């Protein structure tokens, strides 16, 4: 499409909550007819895994609303992270918030391009076979090729 607007996002985080912004903004921009590229690096690579196991932790995040006040020493107990994750997923489902899997599927459907940072893939010993099919593997120079042509660039 001529004059198509372009969005480039760098996604660096791999917790359940921070998997949302790049995918929400990416899919929405695609719906607004943007050409969208997301460059996943460091912990963001977790979101690109075929089998994701994204979690949320109240630990170190005093801004996270909790149903009951929970002292930090309780938050470190085994299983607390899983519990917080289950509760967050339940809350999201009850509020009609899309799951990460759904958003990722919609992103692929709407041709959002995914680039995985090869350096961090190596750093974490991830195999290409562990990450989704159709992902491009590249480095910082490739990102700038995308970014220099983009109308909007976001770092998340």
């Amino acid at each position, binding site marked *: 499409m001529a004059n198509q607007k372009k969005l480039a996002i760098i996604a660096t985080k791999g917790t359940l909550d921070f998997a949302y912004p790049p995918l*929400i903004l990416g*899919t*929405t921009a695609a*719906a*607004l*007819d943007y050409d969208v590229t997301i460059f996943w690096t460091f912990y963001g690579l977790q979101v690109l895994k075929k089998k994701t196991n994204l979690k949320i932790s109240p630990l170190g995040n005093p801004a996270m609303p909790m149903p009951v006040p929970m002292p930090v020493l309780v938050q470190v107990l085994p299983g607390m992270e899983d519990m917080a994750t289950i509760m967050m997923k339940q809350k999201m489902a009850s509020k*009609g*918030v*899309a799951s990460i899997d759904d958003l990722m599927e919609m992103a692929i459907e709407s041709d959002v391009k995914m680039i995985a940072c090869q350096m961090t893939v190596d750093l974490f010993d991830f195999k290409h076979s562990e990450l989704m099919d159709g992902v491009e593997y590249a480095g910082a120079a490739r990102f700038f090729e995308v970014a220099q042509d983009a109308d909007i660039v976001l770092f998340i």
Partner: protein
Amino acid sequence: MADITLDAKGLNCPLPILRAKKALKEMASGQILAIEATDPGSAKDFESFCSQTGNELVKASEANNVYYYEIRKS
């Protein structure tokens, strides 16, 4: 009258917009898509969606916490 009606009730941002976009893709130019939603943020979002995509927001109303929109495909 609407050619197609999309039930986006109970869905939260950005799902009403994504579903609407998907529905519009299957429609012909000039056809009207009706959308029912419960997300209060959808009021501003459908305005912005239409102004950016060139589709026309023909109608926007709200009754009993249900938002109703009609969009004419460009």
